[in-house]
């Protein structure tokens, strides 16, 4: 939550916030609990119209940044989405669009227009069942067979897998990490739709039963995807951190208000020192989370190659996923009984924070990454 935004960014934040408040209020989010997709296609196209899907795509491919710092721009959307626990495949679409813009062939880049307009949805299949969110943990095999490549294995926890028309898949070839882009109706590929504790965010598994693709499906070289995968992870984590911070920010705001209006023993509960002190700690965690989220986004924008971006992204994820979850959790406590009912909105945020904690690597995994990057 940057303190110093450009005028364009300020305007973008305002239109994003207004759009979410009018087109995706919490009542509408709740109603999507029973919908298979979690979001409405027309709604997603309207969101795309506001620029949600074009920020990480260069101008010549139909996108453009507001400030010259595309990740910092996209973070604005993520924060607002967090504040409203919004639906929509924001992270996967932006990650795939960004990678296709940098590493995709001209044919593959043809998909970008649809992603930018919101007509097409793409997902990134990266993690595997029971394994860590780490490039080294990728086991899905890619075998080169003449001019073709063959994929075998299984992916899990893929956001919007069942809603996507295309998948960006990270696989392992003898030569190393390799990525392909393929349509979800390709023969041999099965998408198993799943659910998460989030109200509107859908995940799925993908089974690759010797899926045969032409070499033109490769995104970059066989064995040459390491930099792309690292970049994708950094963008995903930076956006996710911003979303989690937005969620905690909103919960904190409403809870502090509530604590001043709610009376017990003849005084506002916010006058009890036991609660005041916890609220003070929460503000400290929240402000530190905002500082780290912005720092991570700036580092990814700077595309620092000296490991600075990798380190800061993991620092941010470890800190934010942990502390923002604690903020939300303690706010449940401050709300009392109403906080553990379906009726109260706070659980929408608890859900999002718990899913975000795990996806793209837990704080524990990111701490291990920090330790490795520090060469401990």
């Amino acid at each position, binding site marked *: 939550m940057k303190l110093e935004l450009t005028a364009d960014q300020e305007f973008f934040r305002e239109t994003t916030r207004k759009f979410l408040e009018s087109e995706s209020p919490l009542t509408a989010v709740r109603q999507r609990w029973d919908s298979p997709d979690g979001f409405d296609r027309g709604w997603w196209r309207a969101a795309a119209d506001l620029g949600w899907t074009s920020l990480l795509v260069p101008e010549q491919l139909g996108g453009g940044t507001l400030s010259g710092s595309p990740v910092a721009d996209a973070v604005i959307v993520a924060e607002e989405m967090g504040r409203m626990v919004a639906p929509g495949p924001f992270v996967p679409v932006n990650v795939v669009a960004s990678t296709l813009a940098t590493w995709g062939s001209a044919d593959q880049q043809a998909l970008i227009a649809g992603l930018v307009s919101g007509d097409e949805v793409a997902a990134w299949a990266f993690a595997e069942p029971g394994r860590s969110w780490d490039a080294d943990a990728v086991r899905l095999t890619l075998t080169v067979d003449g001019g073709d490549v063959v994929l075998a294995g299984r992916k899990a926890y893929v956001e919007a897998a069942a809603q996507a028309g295309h998948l960006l898949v990270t696989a392992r070839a003898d030569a190393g990490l390799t990525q392909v882009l393929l349509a979800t109706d390709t023969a041999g590929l099965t998408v198993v739709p799943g659910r998460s504790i989030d109200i509107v965010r859908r995940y799925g598994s993908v089974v690759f039963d010797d899926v045969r693709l032409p070499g033109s499906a490769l995104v970059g070289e066989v064995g040459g995807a390491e930099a792309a995968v690292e970049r994708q992870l950094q963008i995903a984590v930076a956006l996710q951190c911003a979303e989690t911070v937005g969620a905690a920010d909103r919960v904190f705001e409403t809870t502090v208000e509530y604590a*001043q209006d709610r009376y017990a023993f003849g005084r506002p509960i916010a006058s009890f020192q036991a609660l005041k002190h916890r609220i003070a700690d929460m503000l400290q965690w929240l402000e530190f989370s905002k500082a780290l989220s912005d720092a991570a986004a700036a580092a990814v924008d700077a595309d620092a190659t000296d490991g600075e971006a990798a380190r800061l992204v993991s620092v941010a994820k470890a800190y934010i996923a942990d502390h923002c979850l604690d903020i939300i959790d303690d706010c449940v406590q401050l709300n009392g009984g109403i906080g553990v009912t379906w009726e109260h909105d706070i659980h929408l945020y608890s859900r999002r924070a718990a899913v975000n904690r795990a996806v793209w690597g837990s704080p524990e995994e990111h701490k291990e990454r920090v330790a490795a990057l*520090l060469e401990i």
Partner: protein
Amino acid sequence: MTDARDQAVDEDVESFRIRARAWIEANLPDRDHPGDDDRALQALLFDSGFAGIAFPREYGGAGLTLAHQKVFYDEVRAAHRWAPCGMPWQVSIGMMAPTILDHGSEELKRRHLPRMLRGEETWMQLLSEPRGGSDLAGATTRLTRDGDTYVLNGAKMWSSGAHTCDFGLCLARTDWDAPKHRGLSMIAVPLHDTPGLVLEVIRAVDGNPGHFCQEFFDDVVVPVENLVGEENSGWAVAQSLLFHERNATGGAGYGYGLQNARPTNRQAQRSADGVIATAKQRGVGGDPVLRQLMAESYIEYTASRFANDRIAAGMRTGQFKGPWGSLLKLHLGALSSRHAKIGLAVGGADGVIWEGDAKVGGVAGEAWLSARGIAIAGGTNEIQRNIVSERLLGLPREPSPDRDLPFSEVVRNQHR
């Protein structure tokens, strides 16, 4: 004023950055080999127009803004150079000088500020008393007007640097019939060769002579001109002092830039690098639990670095009003013990037991013993939490039954 200061009139931040960078590269020592004469370096900064960058020119400052000051210290850090920082500068220039600037008489400002900024004179604070430190407004040190002078009686405690500094800003009671906050005055007490003043260094928890002292005042005569602010308006002066203290501790100080701090050995042990080095030395760097803990330390210190920048920016742009430095101080106070505990984990038995004089991680135990100091000095963690909840978030204030009573009727410590 020197030429360098004239050059600075209306200088925009980016031109200043270029000028500062060139000067820093030509003049400041490498931060790993800074030499040991900070006083001479401070004088060099002053003579070149880079001391008290955000202080008015008539008092020896550069007449620029906090944004310029931040740029200067960012450049010092980026160039891996050293500019004086830590004690006593952190207190004298970062807290006392801005307090004098806010409340001192014209004469005090003209006489002392240039000397403070040049490092010729160092100041510290005499606030806490044996009676208590959190309830500062309950001070019972007595200041009595006697003709053309004041007379000081009582005791102060925990006074950091009193044994090395030239002046102490002392909070004392001038009116015992007024409510506690309205009977206080702030006065500058000379600390060298002052008749009636006895000063003792307190032994710290690690067994070494501490950096703090206890003072006894027995009819100490202080000139009337040394009063800072009006008689009985000492609480306002103390508030402004504490404001500058929290900012300076958090690295968002006025008139100074603490992002530049040079870690001493003990502080290095507190920073993540210290625990990592100990882990390597002990061959436990591969332990998965310890790796999590060491990463946590690194993460917290990294967080505080960016939070400092954020809060400094918020205060500079006016989006953060009030004592936001308290958030940084609170983090530091909470982190210090947590980090020291991680040090104990990494140090293991070697952190607390050693053969002969070869302390391997032996510092870990001592660092842990001292770590609570940060959680207590400059307003305890609890007091910071009160400030954050009440003054940053506007939550209801703690009840204070003594607030409107004449101070002479206020209940004080029970004697056992």
